[in-house]
């Protein structure tokens, strides 16, 4: 019964289970596994159970909200009034926000209860969860391996059965990549579809909040809740809300799916290639057709990303100065030292590296050669996707070039770590919606299939993913907890 939000919602409505029973089930999972998994940074059992009891009382009084009493985990990048928000950083240790992020408020208004806050790479800067100040979350399929990042805690929590949904954020692949390596479903909506208010800013032109769930149907249900224009976030799009579940049952027959040449080059791991080829065959069997497409500027996506993103991060993270909130060093002789020492001690190495890179790229004399050039490259990437979507409905490929890797394996080589996001960054550059869904296994680790559609075509994206899951079992696989 506790396999999807859709199922649980029905069970609650039919009184087959109470909100308290459901919550206790998840709390038991957390208590038995999270000492080793480290997927959560904050929990408050008393608060969560109180919310569950209140939800049961409301249901008894006739409240029929479909998600009332269903627990959710929020990535620790979303500010919450009821639990600390650290963004995986020492500089925000024990920080209590005076307000909720819009996403958090929307889930709260739908009646969902707060189960905990998920571990993440510090300020979402990482692809393995290893940059978290609070230690890495671990992959539920094997605890010596990374759960991906930056939303590694969210993906690991859903894969391990702590919850059926967790919020996540995606700046260069941070929803899709951990969803892929943990074997769960993740959606990064179009830029502007979902409010970023209260989602701690990292790279404002690329950041987008979304969800990680077990199924595409659940992702559609959750996106229904969080979509929409927000007057607190000027970058949200002024467009009507949609019911993303409406077309889920429509077949993919007749869909034209593009396979970017750049996703299938010779250096793609053959094990990953096999899984993707099998997915392509499944779609062919359902009546979709495939064409090869060219995204020639995609080769610039990593270098472009590592100019634009640090530049924006260096500006966004300037607010952490030891004065207004967060960690403050105790050994400063003057204001300047207070700023510099607080930022030195409060930020981890990867965050400092990116702030320095961004400051350099924006500094006098270098802005034209780096930042402006990167904006030109970004426009080329957008144009490539525009041309492709004039020809095809959906783009398909692997989410990651590899399955999970051992904790520590890439931490000394930032460039190799950055390449983990080689297939996902282009989507953020162009502001497109993208999903990762489980499509098979390689070396006993899940492999994700990435689906991409044109801007604001989430309905088509979710339908394409749902149809795959109707005809496959990969999303139902649960971790064997090797090494636990």
């Amino acid at each position, binding site marked *: 019964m506790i396999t999807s939000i859709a199922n649980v919602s029905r069970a609650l409505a039919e009184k087959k289970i109470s909100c308290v029973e459901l919550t206790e089930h998840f709390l038991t999972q957390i208590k038995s596994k999270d000492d080793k998994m480290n997927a959560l940074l904050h929990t408050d059992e008393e608060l969560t159970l109180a919310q569950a009891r209140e939800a049961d009382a409301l249901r008894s009084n006739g409240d029929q909200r479909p998600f009332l009493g269903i627990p959710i985990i929020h990535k620790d990048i979303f500010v919450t009034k009821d639990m600390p928000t650290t963004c995986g950083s020492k500089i925000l240790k024990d920080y209590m926000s005076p307000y909720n992020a819009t996403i958090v408020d929307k889930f709260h208004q739908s009646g969902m209860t707060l189960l905990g806050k998920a571990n993440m790479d510090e300020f979402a800067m990482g692809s393995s969860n290893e940059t978290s100040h609070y230690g890495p979350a671990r992959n539920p399929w094997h605890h010596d391996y990374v759960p991906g990042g930056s939303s590694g805690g969210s993906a690991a929590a859903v894969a391990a059965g702590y919850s059926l949904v967790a919020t996540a954020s995606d700046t260069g692949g941070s929803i899709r990549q951990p969803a892929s390596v943990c074997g769960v479903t993740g959606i990064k909506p179009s830029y502007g579809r979902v409010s970023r208010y209260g989602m701690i800013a990292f790279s404002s032109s690329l950041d987008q909040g979304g969800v990680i769930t077990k199924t595409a149907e659940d992702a559609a249900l959750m996106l229904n809740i969080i979509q929409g224009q927000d007057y607190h976030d000027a970058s949200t799009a002024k467009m009507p809300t949609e019911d993303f579940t409406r077309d889920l049952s429509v077949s993919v027959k007749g869909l034209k799916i593009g396979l970017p040449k750049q996703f299938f080059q010779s250096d793609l791991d053959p094990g990953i290639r096999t899984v993707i080829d099998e997915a392509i065959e499944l779609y062919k069997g359902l009546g979709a057709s495939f064409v090869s497409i060219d995204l020639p500027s995609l080769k610039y996506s990593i270098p*472009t990303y*590592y*100019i634009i993103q640090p530049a924006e991060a260096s500006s966004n993270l300037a607010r952490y100065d030891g004065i207004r909130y967060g960690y403050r060093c105790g050994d400063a002789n003057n204001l300047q030292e207070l*700023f*510099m020492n607080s930022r030195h001690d409060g930020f981890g190495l990867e965050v*400092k590296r990116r702030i320095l890179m961004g400051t350099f790229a924006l500094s006098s004399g270098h802005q034209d050669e780096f930042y402006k050039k990167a904006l030109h490259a970004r426009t080329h990437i957008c144009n490539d996707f525009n041309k492709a979507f004039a020809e095809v409905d959906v783009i398909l490929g692997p989410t990651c070039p590899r399955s999970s890797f051992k904790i520590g394996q890439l931490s000394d080589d930032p*460039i190799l770590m950055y390449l983990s996001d080689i297939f996902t960054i282009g989507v953020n550059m162009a502001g497109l919606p993208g999903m990762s869904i489980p499509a098979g296994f390689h070396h006993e680790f899940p492999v994700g299939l990435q689906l991409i559609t044109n801007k604001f075509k989430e309905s088509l994206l979710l339908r394409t993913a749902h149809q795959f899951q109707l005809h496959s079992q990969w999303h139902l696989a649960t971790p064997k907890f090797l090494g636990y």
Partner: protein
Amino acid sequence: MIDSSLKVDNQLVRHVAKLAKISIHEDEIDQIRDSMINILEMTQQIEEVKSIKDTTFNTEALSVDDLPEDEVVHGNLIDYMNDHFKQFSQGYFRVPTFVSDD
């Protein structure tokens, strides 16, 4: 155009760190310098990107040619403000003090 001869040395790392208002200890500089060199090498690839003239994404609007040179402020910011801005001692830039009615 990206200057391929750009030299990232410890002095540059210290300068950028001051601009970013982050203390960098001497024993950390080499590691940060090396990773900056590697990342900059990777970004060289965008040198071959053609500039876009006619596009809705008008990067010309982002021109910042008129901005002054970056300047690192040493020492106490209040002393610097007093030394460089007469208005500072006259009360400009100050946060208003709340006076209670009681």
